[in-house]
């Protein structure tokens, strides 16, 4: 690991250590924040006891579902829009302002339409993530160097062959950026919805733990979320780096 990596690790360890000390010495009110060690302990115990494993599985399942739908639908819609420039131009202001609107204001409307079930949560996850994939697809298709299509014609490649062997690999880095965004947006969309109002799920567990003054449970679940979200993002990031290096785009 590089020197920068070590320093970063040290900073994080120090921060956690500082929090631990402040909590243990009661500098921070234990009714507000519990020591990180206790959070970890509570998490381990809860995982072993299996109390909330169902909820955890449910939430991550929904995130996966929303992400998968967003990636496929986003890509398909992106391809179609890219092929019709007039439609794309018309939708441009829509895309520009999409993420400007606090999308969660539509969640209650969805609850009222679909009932307090899994549907509105999946929809919120998809609504949050799909446009990122569409935009990434459009960017990726834009950035295919024109010269590649000319090379394809010189080699007398057919449409499908060109698409699969030249266009897709050329657009791939941008598409992968889209996938990264989809995963984190799907997470945010699903968890936030479960938090505001949901019949079940990790967000709901945390919200309930808060209302019940059950700090151990609340922080344990928050810790789980932080760990999983960070781990998934880091994994995707590492993939991205390896890929970029091989293609000579270089380290970011």
């Amino acid at each position, binding site marked *: 690991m590089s020197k*920068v990596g070590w*320093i*970063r690790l040290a*900073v*994080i360890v120090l921060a956690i250590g500082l929090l631990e000390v402040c909590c243990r010495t009661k500098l921070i009110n234990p*009714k*507000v*924040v519990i020591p990180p060690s206790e959070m970890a302990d509570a998490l381990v115990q809860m995982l072993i006891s299996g109390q909330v494993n169902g909820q955890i599985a449910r939430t991550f399942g929904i995130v996966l579902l929303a992400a998968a739908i967003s990636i496929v639908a986003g890509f398909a819609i992106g391809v179609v829009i890219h092929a019709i420039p*007039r439609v794309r*131009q*018309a*939708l441009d*202001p*829509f895309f*520009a*302002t999409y*993420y*400007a*609107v*606090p*999308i*969660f*204001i*539509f*969640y*209650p*409307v969805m*609850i*009222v*339409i679909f009932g307090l079930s899994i549907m509105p949560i999946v929809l919120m996850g998809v609504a949050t993530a799909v446009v990122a994939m569409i935009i990434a697809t459009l960017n990726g298709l834009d950035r295919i160097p024109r010269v590649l299509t000319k090379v394809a014609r010189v080699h007398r490649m057919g449409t499908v062959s060109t698409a699969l062997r030249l266009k897709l690999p050329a657009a791939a880095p941008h598409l992968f950026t889209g996938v990264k965004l989809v995963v*984190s947006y799907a*997470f*945010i969309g699903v*968890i*936030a919805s479960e*938090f*505001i*109002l949901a019949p079940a799920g990790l*967000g709901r567990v*945390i*919200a309930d*733990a*808060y209302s019940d003054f059950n700090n151990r449970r*609340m922080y344990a679940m*928050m810790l789980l*979320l*932080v760990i999983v*979200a*960070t781990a998934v*993002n*880091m994994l995707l*990031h590492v993939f991205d780096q390896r890929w970029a290096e091989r293609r000579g785009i270089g380290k970011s």
Partner: protein
Amino acid sequence: MTATERITDTLILAVIALLVWQGLHQIVGDTALPAPVPTLAYLAKFVPTARFGESAWATFQAFILALFFSYAVGLSIGIWMGFHRLSGAVGEPILISIYTLPKITLYPVVLLIFGLSLPGRVTFGAMHGVLPVALLTMNAIRNIPPVYLKSARTMHLSPWQTITTVLVPATLPEVFSGLRIGFTLTLLGVLLAEMFAAKAGLGFLIINAMQLLQAQEMVSVTVVLFVFAAAANALLLWIEHRLYRRA
């Protein structure tokens, strides 16, 4: 494509959106989703009332304060990490990780510290907005072409002159991008806080209306927020495009 064509296309899209709304209404009925026209009528009556005014004022207060902190803290962090290479290299991945976390899960901590009060909503809003401001400011500073600084030295500018006449104009477009995204996310943060656990503000109004089965009120407030956010962002984007056009 000419401007008139673009405006017509946008209008066509708006009409399509309204038709979809009407269509959904036919399917799910009045209690779930009121039709566009009655909603707008309700909106016209509701907005001038005191109840709406109070909620709007509560949201506005929280939003403005949160925005101030987002910008102040975000710019400071961004400037420091932009100029101090080591801090930038160490801190950037940390900031990006926090950026991708569903921060709403940290909301209970904020609530525990501040309770259901204004400082709680302000903190939560600021938590959302500070990151894009910091990241984009840092990036803007890192991207300053070195030749600008060399030119400043050959023209014997003082450090203060270099900052005000070269660095600030050079980084302005990208920093403004960060401010625009920070605006959006701060608003989102404040509304989320109100939707989850507050007793005031427009976010609370929406959830409250939903729980009392007042579909018209719920949708009206949603529409108001939607229009406000879209309009504000369009304005900021317009400014941003003008800044970038010269770059």
